[in-house]
């Protein structure tokens, strides 16, 4: 069979038979080769770069690749189709998903509670529980000793569904349009979950059997995990098939790593707003307080919840993944090699930065992008409308993607290529921040409250812990609240899932609070576009209020 046409992937040295007409990306998915594809194979993010040797066509769009790259055989895996014979494909280092170490810490505001486990099943060794946060981009888990509630281990992994798009809509479209699409998405999710759980078991100091699992995920992920089609969520009225998911065993869900455990999936609120937000609310404790709070979950999709113990309302914003490294050419996740903070010298107008783990930078992560944009604005290199302002001596470049600001020179960067922020990247950041800010304003308007009525603002999600709030408000990522009202929560979904494992009452609260929290569909809110347009400005069209919030006396 030496002559059978096939693809050989390097450096894994894995082979896959050639399927006529399919892209390299499709072959890679089948062969289990991880390739970054935040846009879901649409040919627009330019991140699935590979070099090819052999007979191929396509994937050489001049927009995404430079002439030198094309000459060097670089192609986009999502557009390049192998034609015949043996084709060798090397996945470029920048196109491999990065390992994550952050994102698994999270804290609950209502800590130090009595340990009241869900219920104990006698088994071999210690009874163990697993709390899971099933995110759009990242799966994170914690292993709990159910005898005393101790956290034994934490682990995380990329969501393998990422190859079919960084955003949920792309994945639903993939599921609808490909034969067995949802089955494939479900299989990838199970693989990811198995990987997290085996990681937890490996690093656990205590041996035992997993008897309880609590899992918090958005509605789409929850549907896929439960074996339901999330397709109805895409279209108005965006109604989930199920909002509550009666407990099943791991075996019933097809999860090999915890087959006999009882799996409790956090109930969904409505639309895309799922159990992850329920768990986040649980962790924040806002549902137990008289004070009105806002909760932002800044992730691949932004979600916002508003309320107190009397009422709650939540929505998902159309915020893109700009702060998770997607949709921004120089963007990357918060891992080693990522620039996580930026300062621009007011004299030379050059950027200075810090890199996670030290060393040369490979890209810029969410908090770095936020800092970078805020600094560009403060230094007068970007105007309120998000356009670059020409200034003598400023390190601007003309690139194939328009004007760009040079963050790191080629000789300063890990990949030996310039790290730049281009005009479309800036627009993408503006859109993301506007959608998040506008979502909060739309919730306030929907119930008839003012910003001043909000007493606390919880920030959950990957960069909640280390984002620079001043940069966030300089840019207008959130509505203008005084700095003292902000409380970072880290991974609140995971914290909520842990809380529910440790205390039965918390699980009951979660079950009760989901149906009593209203879902607000922003796509049918006529005011949303208005709020969005207001927020598409730096920091905001209502800039007076932001200035007040950033003044020293209100900090």
């Amino acid at each position, binding site marked *: 069979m030496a002559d059978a046409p096939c693809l050989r992937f390097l450096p894994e040295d894995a082979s896959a038979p050639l399927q006529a007409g399919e892209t390299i990306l499709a072959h890679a998915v089948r062969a289990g080769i991880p390739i970054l594809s935040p846009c879901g194979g649409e040919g627009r993010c330019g991140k699935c770069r590979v070099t090819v040797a052999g007979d191929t066509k396509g994937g050489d769009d001049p927009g995404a690749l430079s002439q030198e790259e094309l000459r060097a055989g670089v192609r986009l895996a999502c557009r390049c189709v192998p034609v015949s014979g043996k084709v060798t494909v090397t996945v470029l280092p920048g196109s491999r998903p990065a390992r994550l170490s952050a994102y698994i810490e999270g804290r609950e505001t209502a800590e130090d509670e009595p340990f009241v486990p869900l219920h104990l099943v006698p088994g071999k060794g210690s009874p163990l529980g697993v709390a899971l946060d099933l995110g759009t981009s990242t799966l994170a888990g914690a292993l709990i000793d159910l005898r005393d509630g101790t956290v034994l281990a934490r682990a995380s992994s990329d969501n393998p569904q990422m190859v079919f798009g960084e955003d949920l809509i792309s994945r639903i479209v993939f599921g609808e349009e490909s034969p067995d699409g949802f089955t494939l998405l479900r299989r990838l999710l199970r693989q990811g979950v198995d990987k997290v759980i085996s990681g937890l078991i490996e690093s656990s100091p205590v041996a035992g059997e997993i008897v309880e699992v609590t899992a918090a995920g958005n509605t789409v992920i929850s549907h896929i995990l439960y074996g339901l089609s999330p397709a109805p969520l895409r279209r108005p009225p965006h109604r989930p098939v199920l909002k509550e998911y009666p407990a099943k065993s791991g075996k019933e869900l097809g999860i090999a790593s915890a087959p006999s455990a009882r799996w409790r999936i956090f109930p969904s609120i409505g639309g895309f707003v799922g159990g992850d937000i329920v768990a986040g609310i649980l962790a924040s404790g806002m549902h137990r307080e008289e004070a009105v709070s806002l909760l932002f979950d800044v992730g691949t999709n932004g979600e916002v919840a508003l309320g107190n113990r009397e009422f709650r309302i939540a929505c998902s914003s159309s915020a893109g993944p700009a702060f998770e490294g997607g949709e921004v050419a120089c963007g990357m996740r918060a891992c080693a090699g990522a620039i996580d903070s930026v300062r621009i010298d007011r004299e030379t107008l050059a950027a200075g930065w810090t890199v996670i783990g030290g060393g040369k930078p490979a890209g810029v992560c969410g908090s770095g992008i936020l800092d970078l944009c805020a600094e560009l604005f403060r230094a007068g290199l970007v105007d*309120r*409308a998000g*356009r670059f*302002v020409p200034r003598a001596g400023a390190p601007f470049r003309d690139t194939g993607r328009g004007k760009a600001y040079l963050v790191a020179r080629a000789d300063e960067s890990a990949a030996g290529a310039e790290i730049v922020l281009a005009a479309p990247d800036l627009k993408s950041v503006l859109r993301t921040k506007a959608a998040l800010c506008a979502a909060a304003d739309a919730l306030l308007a929907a119930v008839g409250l003012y910003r001043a009525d909000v007493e606390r603002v919880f920030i959950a999600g990957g960069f909640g812990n280390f984002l620079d709030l001043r940069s966030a408000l300089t840019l207008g990522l959130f509505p203008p609240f005084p700095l003292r009202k902000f409380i970072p929560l880290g991974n609140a979904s995971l914290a909520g899932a842990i809380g529910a494992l440790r205390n039965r009452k918390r699980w009951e609260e979660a079950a009760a609070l989901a149906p009593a929290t209203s879902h607000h569909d922003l796509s049918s809110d006529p005011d949303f576009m208005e709020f969005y*347009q207001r927020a*598409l*400005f730096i920091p905001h*069209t209502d*800039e007076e209020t932001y200035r007040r919030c950033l003044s020293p006396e209100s900090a």
Partner: protein
Amino acid sequence: MTVAFPKQAFPGRVLEVTLPAAEGGTPVIVGGQNALPLAPEGEKHNPVAVGMEVGTGSGEIPPSLAHALGGREKDPVSLARACEDEWGASFIFLSLSGCHPDNGSQTVAMGAKLARDVLAAVRCPVIVGGCGDEEIDAKLFPAVAEAAPRPVFLSYADEKNYRLVGGAALAYGHGVVSWSPIDINMAKQINLLLSDIGVPPERILIDPLTGGLGYGLEYTYSIVERIRLAGLSGDAMLARPVLCHLGDAWKAREAVDASEPSWGDPDVRGPRWEEATGWACLAAGADLLVCRHPGNAALLRGTSWR
């Protein structure tokens, strides 16, 4: 019992803006009010100013309009003079549309010279509009700003070109018309951007983009009304006079089509179409109207209305 008008006390007041005239001419003063338009008991304030558009392009004009202009549309200078002397326009909106490659391809130098000639021919205030081509306007505005022998308003500055237009206005002492596409937030944003580069507020007029009757007028109506309400409620960036171009009314098929006898005489219908657009803009809160039909300059002149 007497019925008292429910006078609303607004915290804000529209900024008064003066469009300067040549010596011997009458400047146009608009704004200054702290009341909604047409309110019966509002403070005495400046009436609506009605100006006329003088085009320079080679584009066709609807017959009903051409009849009224009496053939003078071919010569911008004499047309401008007629607008001022015969038809009572309070100001001239000189559109340098002829510099557009699709509309006559006049050079920038010719455009600037035309502006100078018109400014010499009339005493009333003049607003000079670009041709709509980004690259040409980038040269045209600085040239006009330099050539103009007296202060004018440059129309318009948008999110893309505000540095250039605002800079040219600042360098030569002109005013700026700030433009946004029927969106109250973008209207505020362009004013914030102009204020960031130092254009003084009393030298700015807001052009919210006016849809013609039947073709988006309702959006303009509400945006103008909201700009005015926001300004009166204390938003300084929006407490500025609003200018509405009625010219789009002439793009409506209903305004010019002579093939539908059931629609009535186009010589009546065309000007009425523009006039109705004007009344709606006035009811919404416009401070300056730019019309093309000579009869409407007289009809819309605001004295008896506010």
